[in-house]
């Protein structure tokens, strides 16, 4: 299994430029496993065991997706729900992801200046990061500062290509990243056994 796992989740890859370019760039590198969720699970029936196995040896987990409604795309959310289970990713005995790094590689439609209090997105982009950050933390992962491409719809082909090249270069140079040197290790919070209700359904 690979040291770097890129979990890509674009619901309409046929219309994608940025995500697709980054997927291709990453796939060309040795030691990088690119998992196209919508191609692996077009029927939304995730093989969680296989996903957990794929993450076993990963040191860096990358989430590659377009920002839809200020968050992740649906299948990625389903993936997190089903793969990061209680007792595996968190909670008693849930140490599988401890010590790994989570890196967000996302693109937005709106340009950078739209993510300002006086603009239509009303918040700076980092306002939308806490859920990701906390997800990583609860799983014991360091949340690495994200790579964001704003205004992906309007970006020219050259800009996209340049962005993809940057992405590939960073993957290749991992873990020798300046920001990682300063990033503290993640203290995985304790989640007690009773924190999750027993299964209610029949």
């Amino acid at each position: 299994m690979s040291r770097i796992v890129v979990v890509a989740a674009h619901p309409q890859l046929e219309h994608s430029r940025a995500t697709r370019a980054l997927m291709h760039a990453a796939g060309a590198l040795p030691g990088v496993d690119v998992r196209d969720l919508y191609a692996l699970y077009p029927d939304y029936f995730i093989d969680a065991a296989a996903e957990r196995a794929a993450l076993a040896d990963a040191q860096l987990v990358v989430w590659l997706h377009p920002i839809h409604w200020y968050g992740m795309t649906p299948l990625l959310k389903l993936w997190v729900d089903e793969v990061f289970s209680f007792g595996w990713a968190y909670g008693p005995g849930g140490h599988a992801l401890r010590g790994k790094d989570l890196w967000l590689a996302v693109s937005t439609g709106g340009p950078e200046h739209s993510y300002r209090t006086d603009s239509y997105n009303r918040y700076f982009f980092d306002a939308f990061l806490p859920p990701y950050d906390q997800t990583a933390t609860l799983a014991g992962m360091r949340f690495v500062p994200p790579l964001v491409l704003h205004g992906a719809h309007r970006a020219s082909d050259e800009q996209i290509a340049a962005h993809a090249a940057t992405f590939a270069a960073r993957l290749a140079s991992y873990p020798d990243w300046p920001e990682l040197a300063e990033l503290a290790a993640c203290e995985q919070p304790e989640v007690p056994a009773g924190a999750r209700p027993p299964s209610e359904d029949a």
Partner: protein
Amino acid sequence: MLAVPLARLLGLGSIIGYLGAGIAIGPWGLKLVQEPEQVLHVAEFGVVLMLFLVGLELEPRRLWAMRRPIFVWGSVQLLGSALVIAPAAMAFGVPWPVALVAALGLAMSSTAIGLTVMSERNLMNTTAGQSVLSVMLLQDIAAIPILALVPLLAAGAAHAGGGDGWLGAAKAVGVVLAIVFGGRLLLRPALRWIARSDTPEIFTAASLFLVVVVASLMQAVGMSMALGAFLAGVLLAESEYRRELETDLEPFKGLMLGLFFIAVGMSVDFAVVLAQPGLVLAIVAGFLVAKAAALAAMARLMPVPLAERPVFLILLAQGGEFGFVVFQAAAGAGVIDARVSSMLVAAVAMSMLLTPLLLVLADRWWIPRLARGARPAMKELDEPQSAPVIVAGFGRYGQIVARMLFANGLSATILDHDAEQIEAVRRFGLVAHYGDATRLDLLRTAGAERARVIVVAIDDIEQSLELVDLVREHFPRLAIVARARNVQHWYALRERGVELIERETFDAALLSARSVLELMGWERHHARTLAMRFRQHNLELLEQMAPHFKDQAKLIALAKAGRQQLEELWAQERAAAKSGTPRAAWHAPAAGEPAAGDESKP
């Protein structure tokens, strides 16, 4: 009870079985029953019930629409046959009253056999079926005038035969009208009242009683009981009780009809036959041929489709049980003597015996020949095609695949080997080429060298495997997408290295299963998740079993083990869910559900 399965086994139809049984146990066989007439009377009720059920199936509107076939063609058949038989008989020196009686009696056809055969073969809705029914209905109606006529023919009709005729006819019409109007007004409320009692047995008894009453009324005025029952059935055809009446009375009908045929078998007076075998056989052959000739002409004029004509001819050419009634009445009135009556009865019974045999012969030789001749020859594909996709087989499966491709702008070359199918879909605007996809030259013409995908949607398993072998050998770059009819077919395809196989009913059945779960209270999405898990488990089991597919015992063992494993696992999960403890999951639990440490491995 022995005869019917035996007859069915020999492919002869249940009627022959009953007739054979009748002969066997009657006065000429084992002599178990000495007075067949009694049995015949009781068993006639079977014919009555059958006609009631036939009427039930028919809507009054359709009956009215059929009035032309009934009166026109029915009369043509009856009079036409009589007009052929009577002069022939007279030519042999038979006195004209006898000839007339014989002709009219022999012109009748057996309602019992005719309708039974037609419902067995599902012919009721065909032209032939409707024609046969119309003719038989007319025969039933014509019974009145014929029976009225008989006494008139008696030389020296001293008793009030003449007067009785007209009065009788008036009474008959009166009763029919009474049944029709009374029925419309009284029947349904009566049934509603009975149905309210909520006891199914009472409803059954009441319906039988109803049929008996109507039949008796008709008999009281000298009319055919069967016709009365038919009218009653038609009156009830549009009522809400139709289904119930059908299901309640069907078993009785079967029983009584069986009895009827046994009685017919019993009443064949072999003494008469043995005394003058030649004459009797000549009569049988004679009237069958005469009627068949008249019917053949009718069939051409109506017209009856070619493939249906044999059955039409055979069913109507035979003599009918109503002939028995005519002959007995005539003998009673002194028009014909007892000896002649017995001979005619024997002739009719023998023709009824022959009918099922003739039908079997028709099935084996005549009808297939007609079917072959009727189909126009279709031209095979000869123009080279170059579409990127080839679809072999254009039935239900191939059509869906092709439509999806066309909707997405892909062109496909479609092949099918059924000329009728190609004709049928051409009417819907879909173009398919005629040809045998298992022939290499045809595949080449269809563009297999350059195409990228071939869809093997043929329903014949052997042919589909042949095609796959051909493709793998001669067109290795052609990707194969295959339809599997069943699991064995799936294995055979898998063995040949085909990856993209779908079992034709599997996913549809799973969807149905989901519906049932939903109806039984499962949450919809939960049902879907369970179906997906079942599907995955099933596919894994299939892959596991594939190497052993020729070993039946191993297959069974693996299948059982797999099934048990899934059932146990899911039972555990349900129990854990009920008791509230988080459970270990083989696969991921559904979103939102907790899972204990996932040590278990698939």
